[in-house]
């Protein structure tokens, strides 16, 4: 009788974490693992204790239930553990679930579990998956290390080396290769792989990858066409819905964008970022009730998770103010202060954003004393404040006669976004409304000019071969305008040129990488980010570029 039996894995040297809220199931899983000689088994009944165990010990194997009752899901724990690098590179994460869920099959290499198991879990199933995944992760560990070091080209090279020898996981590797190519700006390489996959069969991940390429290149109509092919047939592919919503916004169709987000929320409502996005689109469309609920949901869902940010609180307070619910708005701001107690910018914003509320309530004295007390803090922190908050704060400050604070905030905003005519226009119109048209023009022009001047001076210095001086200049400028994509890329360019001449330097390397990563987030369509990443990685490395 041939029943394809394989020997059970020997887990005697592996440390294992079982994350499962149901005690009976924990015991069953532990007993099965014990039959594979596992001795180092730790169990966690909820997300909190799972995270603290993961902080304490680098586990080799994690068996995690996707649904853990109220609160965080297994997917949240996985993403947090990856994000905070709590897992060793060879760790195997098996997600256990009662049924196949959308979370398991979408997402990127960062957010996918290594494998998933559908209950009931049998010994054979667990052992065969563990054997396969342990072996696979051992082979992938060097790639994982390169990924963590952001060495995408090196990771690409390693993936290619493994693809050569008739690998049984060939398409897993190709999918990873395409994702790495996207990260390192090798768009054509990624496109080739996605096309190859789509020629083979209709694979949602490949079509999504193709759509991402179109989106990053600014070809929104193409992106929308590909994404609709995924979403029209099936609402389980959540990531495609999210990207489609952003694409539709770019195409000037917020109505359709909102519909798509709501469809994704119907499938998976417990997603704080998706709720935030719904709020933003609904606000843009003037549907305040929907926006209000969405921002509230986003806050509730993100509380106690790494996803929490000031953004949802500020947006909620702004909607409440527009709806004349000033008590609620003040309440939201005080919750912002409590929930984000470690974040000094959030504390500043929680106070500062009371100014428009107080003014709206006719409490002018209170508003003025707030503005005066916070003036220094606002000026110092101006470059770090979110643009919406600055726009919402500027008009009340001008109305209160706090012109120098308003000018510091808007001036900083403009130098951060000097290539963004829409922002310059909004700043100008705030001044015009306050009857200060001329002052506005002077401020907008001089702030934009100052940004351009610095760029030009940097370029001139570097052409003259004065790299050191140029770097000093752009570094100082970066402190003042940390979100100016062009400046970030110019600065990274200079740092790379310096290292190409004088050799690799860890601190400069990190500085350049941070600039490029942020610039890419701010301006995904700029091809320079990918090119600079490649040059950065090649400094002091001798591997070749992928063909």
């Amino acid at each position, binding site marked *: 009788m041939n*029943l394809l039996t394989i020997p059970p894995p020997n887990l005697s040297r592996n440390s294992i974490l079982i994350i499962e809220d149901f005690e009976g199931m924990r015991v*069953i899983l532990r007993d099965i693992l014990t039959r594979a000689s596992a001795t180092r088994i730790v169990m966690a009944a909820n997300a909190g204790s799972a995270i603290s165990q993961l902080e304490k010990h680098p586990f080799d194997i994690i068996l995690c239930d996707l649904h853990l009752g109220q609160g965080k899901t297994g997917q949240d724990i996985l993403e947090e553990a990856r994000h905070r690098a709590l897992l060793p590179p060879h760790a195997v994460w098996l997600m256990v679930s*009662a049924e196949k869920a959308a979370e398991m099959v979408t997402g990127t290499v960062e957010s996918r579990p290594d494998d998933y198991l559908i209950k009931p879990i049998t*010994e*054979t199933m667990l052992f065969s998956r563990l054997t396969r995944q342990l072996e696979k992760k051992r082979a992938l560990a060097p790639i994982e290390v390169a990924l963590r070091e952001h060495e995408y080209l090196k990771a690409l090279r390693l993936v290619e080396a493994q693809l050569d020898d008739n690998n049984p996981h060939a398409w*897993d590797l190709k999918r990873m290769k395409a994702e790495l190519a996207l990260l390192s700006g090798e768009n054509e390489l990624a496109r080739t792989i996605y096309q190859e996959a789509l020629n083979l069969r209709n694979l949602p991940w490949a079509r999504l990858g193709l759509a991402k390429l179109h989106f990053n290149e600014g070809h929104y109509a193409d992106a929308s066409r590909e994404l609709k092919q995924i979403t029209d047939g099936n609402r*389980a592919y959540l990531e495609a819905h999210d990207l489609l919503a952003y694409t539709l916004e770019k195409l000037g169709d917020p109505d359709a964008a909102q519909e798509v987000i709501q469809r994704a929320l119907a*499938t998976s409502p417990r997603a704080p970022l998706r709720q935030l996005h719904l709020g933003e689109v609904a606000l843009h469309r003037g549907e305040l009730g929907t926006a209000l*609920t969405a921002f509230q949901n986003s806050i509730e869902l993100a509380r106690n998770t790494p996803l929490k940010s000031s953004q949802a609180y500020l947006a909620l307070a702004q909607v409440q103010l527009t709806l004349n619910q000033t008590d609620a708005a003040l309440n939201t701001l005080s919750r912002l202060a409590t929930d984000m107690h470690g974040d000094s910018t959030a504390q500043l914003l929680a106070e500062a954003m009371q100014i428009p509320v107080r003014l709206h309530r006719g409490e002018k004295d209170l508003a003025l004393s707030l503005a005066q007390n916070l003036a220094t803090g606002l000026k110092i922190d101006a470059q770090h404040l979110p643009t919406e908050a600055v726009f919402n704060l500027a008009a009340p400050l001008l109305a209160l006669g706090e012109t120098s604070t308003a000018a510091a905030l808007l001036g900083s905003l403009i130098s951060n976004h000097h290539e963004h005519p829409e922002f310059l226009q909004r700043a100008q119109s705030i001044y015009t409304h306050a009857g200060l048209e001329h002052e506005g023009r002077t401020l907008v022009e001089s702030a934009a000019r100052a940004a351009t001047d610095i760029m030009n001076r940097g370029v001139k210095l570097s052409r003259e071969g004065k790299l050191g001086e140029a770097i000093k200049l752009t570094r100082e400028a970066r402190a003042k305008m940390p979100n100016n994509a062009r400046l970030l890329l110019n600065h990274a360019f200079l740092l790379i040129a310096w290292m190409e001449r004088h050799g690799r330097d860890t601190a400069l390397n990190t500085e350049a990488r941070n600039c490029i990563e942020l610039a890419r987030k701010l301006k995904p369509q700029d091809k320079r980010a990918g090119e600079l990443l490649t040059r950065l990685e090649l400094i002091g490395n001798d591997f070749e570029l992928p063909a």
Partner: protein
Amino acid sequence: MPTEQPKLDLSTFLLSSIHDMKNSLSMMASYLEDALAQTPTEAGEQANNTLARQKTAQALYEAQRVNNHLIQLLALYKIDQSFYPFDPTEQSLADLAREALARAMPLAESKGIQLDCECPENLFGWFDYDLVFGVIVQALLNAMNYTCNKVFLKAAPCEAGVLIQIEDDGPGYPEFLLDQGNALQRGICFETGSTGLGLYFADVVANLHQAGGRTGRIVLTNGGKPGDDQPVGRHLSGGCLSLFLP
């Protein structure tokens, strides 16, 4: 949480109840499997021990049968409502066969049925693992219900895809099942008590798999009469379910 509460309809209760029942059944199946693994099987064991094993295996079979049906209903509902996360990946057929046989083994042992399998270790195919796994396990359990004493699982490459077959040496499928080409129209048979769910599920799953202009399909045959769709030779004389995946 200040979410707007949508009005609950019956399908919400049905879905959550199915989930709840599935969880219980998963636990029950695990306990029974554990109990079977812990009962000694050495020669000379006591008769009542053998009986206990048989009863436990039978209970495990029933628990798995209901669990499979619930999984199939849930999957069908999600496919129908367009939110099943259909996810074909390149997978090892040997792993699939191993895991499916492990599911069927306790019952086979207790019923004295001989399970055999033929599958190359290096055979890979593109399919949605969970759906196809459900089809294979169901087919194995059915075959064990109708067989005399042998069930054979075979996976092999075929033109532009893979072919998985489950054969038994029982009386074979009734004529009316063989006649109706399309399982989607077979419906409920009140004579046999079969709801047709298993075959319907297999058909839906097969149809979801498409590549290169080809669509997956199931074919039912009897008694070692290979049809056009069966490049693979027959091993047993009873019913045979063939699942072709492009």
